[in-house]
């Protein structure tokens, strides 16, 4: 009997050791495979129609699954600082086909399809297509018009269409009052920093999606910085007019009482005065990179 | 009675004999009322046939039962005899409406076999029974009993009584999947007689049972007979048939070959005498010894009755010790084997001739 027990223990220990080896080996294999740089997220089936047929009557569930995949895809790419988001549109295309009433998919898509790399896929035309589909399937959801307007305004820079979108959305009795105001403002002025800030602020405040909120925050900071720089520029110009020379640093502006104190950008870095007396972002500020990218657009 | 090879005439003769017997039995019961229909037997079968299509496109037909016509009388124990595949089970299944005849009709207790309500007076034990193995014996009997429209109290009482009668009282709460074959056979019997049916039909009730089990089944059949029930059962064990049946029907190759009391079916003509004797070496060369079969110092020889006494004298002279002298009577087994062999010969003859 003792022999049997010893045998059993030995066997159990061997099995355990075996599993530990398998575990360690798997970790090694994982590490090796990342060097392969395989597109791990290949979509084998790209046709939304086929997927819908295959889902039999479980399309809403499949839609939710594909939506989850889309979010995970975006998250991973973002985490790895990979700018290639080419699968985002197919994933959202399938999700919205499988479940046309999945509101969040449209809203998520609207933001991350249209936004320029590295934050998004840079395909605003696809975002428009997605949103129009969303509006067709959910005509009562007025916020799609808001999203549509945002896409036209920020990424397509088509202010006529943006104004029209806001106008259309404002007709819904449930819509917020500022939709109508925004429609008029954009129609009149086109792009303006105040408008941009207001639009991003609303998104930031009303969204329940973490990724969307984070992205809105990034944009808000940038717009705020732009507004600050504009105001600072005006102050610098005022100084140049008064002192008959361009400002050399912020100290100049503070000393002449034009500024109450050292203004900080939204990242917490102090603004500086550049060579030609123009207001600029601090070279150490992380906003600088984004700002330069915005300027190139 | 003619020899068994006479086919149709023999069969007809047997039917006639059966009718005569029936008439005799009725008169023995002390007369019969004018109202009683003389042809109303408990089970009447007329030209019952069953064909199975087989082969390519089911064009060919295999006759598993051909033109069975017979009857079973009230209070009778009737046995179907025959080799495997002869058509005994087919007949019983036809009667129980598990399969449908391609020709012919049958009536049980005066009602057509199509009348399912008549099943209330029939008990049936299928061949190699298998029951819901997730139920216990008690639950199974209770379940089956519910189809017989008994009052609840009556039902419980009967179920209990049946379990006791077949000796399963102690095992009644065990699931049937744990039962041995013999126990299943007993459960089968119990559910067959639970509702005290007038007719009890048993398909190979002794199969797979040990001698004790077989004895128990035999006892139950005899009890049923004593209670005046009609019992119809099939078997290929000849000794059971000889012991239990009032009448026997021999089915071979789908046809009824003979019907009658077990003793009547065989040629009662004696076939001589058999002498068993012992002789030591001193006997020398008796010409008789060559005709005998030998085991050690014992010899067995068959001879016609006429030669008996002369042979005995010769043996006495040779100093042999006579062990026994018996009359040779053909048994049901020989009759049976003869039928089977004839049938096989006929079948192969048909094959050779190419239909």
């Amino acid at each position, binding site marked *: 009997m003792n022999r049997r027990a010893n045998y059993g223990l030995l066997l159990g220990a061997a099995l355990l050791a075996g599993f530990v080896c398998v575990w360690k080996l798997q970790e090694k294999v994982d590490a090796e495979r990342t060097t392969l740089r395989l597109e791990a997220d290949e979509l084998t089936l790209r046709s939304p129609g086929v997927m819908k047929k295959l889902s039999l009557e479980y399309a809403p569930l499949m839609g*939710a699954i594909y939506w989850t995949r889309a*979010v995970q895809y975006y998250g991973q790419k973002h985490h790895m600082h990979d700018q290639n988001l080419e699968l985002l549109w197919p994933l959202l295309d399938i999700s919205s086909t499988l479940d046309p009433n999945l509101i969040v998919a449209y809203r998520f898509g609207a933001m991350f399809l249209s936004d320029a790399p590295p934050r998004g896929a840079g395909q605003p035309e696809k975002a428009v297509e997605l949103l129009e589909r969303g509006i067709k399937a959910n005509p009562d959801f007025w916020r799609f018009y808001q999203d549509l307007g945002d896409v036209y305004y920020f990424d397509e820079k088509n202010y006529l269409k943006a104004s029209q979108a806001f106008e259309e959305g404002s007709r819904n009795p449930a819509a917020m009052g500022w939709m109508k105001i925004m429609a008029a403002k954009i129609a009149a002025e086109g792009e303006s920093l105040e408008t941009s800030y207001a639009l991003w602020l609303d998104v930031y405040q009303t969204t329940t999606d973490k990724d969307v909120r984070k992205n809105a925050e990034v944009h808000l900071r940038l717009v705020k910085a732009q507004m600050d720089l504009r105001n600072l520029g005006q102050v610098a110009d005022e100084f140049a007019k008064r002192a008959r020379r361009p400002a050399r640093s912020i100290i100049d502006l503070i000393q002449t009482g034009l500024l109450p104190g050292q203004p900080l950008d939204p990242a917490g870095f102090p603004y500086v005065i550049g060579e030609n007396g123009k207001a600029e972002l601090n070279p150490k500020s992380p906003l600088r990179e984004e700002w330069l990218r915005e300027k190139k657009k | 009675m003619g020899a068994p090879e006479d086919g149709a005439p023999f069969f007809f003769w047997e039917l006639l004999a059966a009718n005569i017997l029936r008439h005799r039995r009725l008169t023995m019961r002390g007369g019969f009322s004018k109202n009683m229909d003389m042809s109303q037997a408990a089970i009447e079968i007329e030209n019952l046939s069953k064909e199975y299509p087989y082969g390519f496109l089911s064009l060919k037909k295999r006759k598993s039962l051909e033109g069975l016509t017979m009857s079973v009388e009230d209070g009778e124990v009737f046995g179907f005899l025959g080799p495997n595949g002869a058509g005994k089970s087919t007949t019983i299944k036809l009667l129980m409406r598990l399969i449908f005849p391609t020709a012919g009709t049958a009536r049980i207790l005066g009602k057509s076999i199509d009348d399912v309500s008549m099943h209330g007076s029939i008990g049936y034990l*299928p061949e190699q029974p298998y*029951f819901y193995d*997730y139920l216990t014996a008690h639950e199974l009997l209770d379940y089956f009993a519910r189809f017989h429209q008994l009052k609840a109290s009556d039902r419980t009482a009967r179920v209990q009584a049946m379990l006791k009668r077949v000796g399963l009282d102690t095992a009644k709460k065990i699931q049937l999947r744990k039962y041995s074959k013999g126990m299943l056979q007993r459960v089968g019997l119990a559910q067959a007689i639970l509702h005290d049916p007038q007719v009890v039909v048993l398909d190979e009730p002794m199969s797979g049972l040990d001698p004790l089990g077989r004895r128990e089944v035999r006892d139950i059949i005899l009890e049923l007979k004593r209670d005046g029930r009609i019992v119809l059962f099939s078997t290929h064990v000849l000794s059971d048939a000889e012991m239990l049946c009032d009448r026997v029907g021999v089915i071979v190759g789908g046809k009824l070959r003979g019907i009658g009391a077990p003793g009547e079916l065989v040629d009662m003509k004696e076939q001589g005498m058999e002498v068993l004797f012992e002789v030591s070496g001193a006997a020398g060369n008796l010409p008789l010894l060559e005709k005998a079969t030998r085991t050690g110092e014992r010899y067995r020889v068959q001879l016609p009755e006429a030669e008996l006494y002369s042979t005995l004298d010769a043996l006495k002279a040779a100093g042999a010790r006579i062990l026994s002298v018996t009359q040779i009577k053909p048994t049901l087994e020989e009759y049976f084997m003869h039928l089977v062999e004839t049938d096989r010969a006929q079948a192969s003859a048909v094959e050779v001739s190419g239909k």
Partner: protein
Amino acid sequence: MRNIQTVAANTFREAVRDRVLYNLVFFALLMMGAAILVGQISIGIEQDVIVSLGLSAISVIGIFIAVFLGVALVSREMDKRTLYALLAKPVKRWEFLLGKFFGLVMTLTVNTAAMAAGLYMALWSVKHPLLKSDAFILAAVYLILLKLALIVALALLFSCFTTPFLAILFTAGIYVAGLFAGDLRTIHGVDIDPGSLRLMRGISYLLPNFQNFNVMGAVVHGRGVPAAIVWHATLYAILYIAIVLTGAAVIFSRRNLK
């Protein structure tokens, strides 16, 4: 009628003692737990995912039970000859079949109710007060049950005249085909001749239109289900089931057992 009741009660008992059932229900409850987990990684649609995953699990598992048990119930009896002793009793063959049907439908009702309770518990654990709109989930569950009853009837029909394997195949096949029946009606193409179109339309009406019982899209997003849909689906199910069971009864009544 009492015979039907007797067979139904025994069928229910048989299903309950069949351990496969417990595994499936356990699996379903596991799905509810999974739904909660999945909901946490699907931002913004936690409740939608729980409802859609829960209803899908109830539907899929219910279909598995309906098909496999539905086929097994009759096939197993014929195979193992448990039917022999039963049919020797004063019970008609169609009574037996109806009893099997009702017994299995009872089983499915109990299972579905248990799984629906699991779904409500999962939902409750995620968003504590249950809204009135959550009552519509019951409508979806009820319609799923109607669908399962129809599938059981089909499974019984097929197992009356084919082998168990083929019966499962046919039943599953009709289920899938029935889901696309609506599409068959609206099919259009340049080179399809009118005769074929008419044929396809005819087939589309003959097939059981299983989409009639599908309201998942609406219920998942908290929208309601009109009473008219529930009512008409019920009528459809009753009518179609009656037709199928009649066919099954006719076939079974004439069948020669082994």
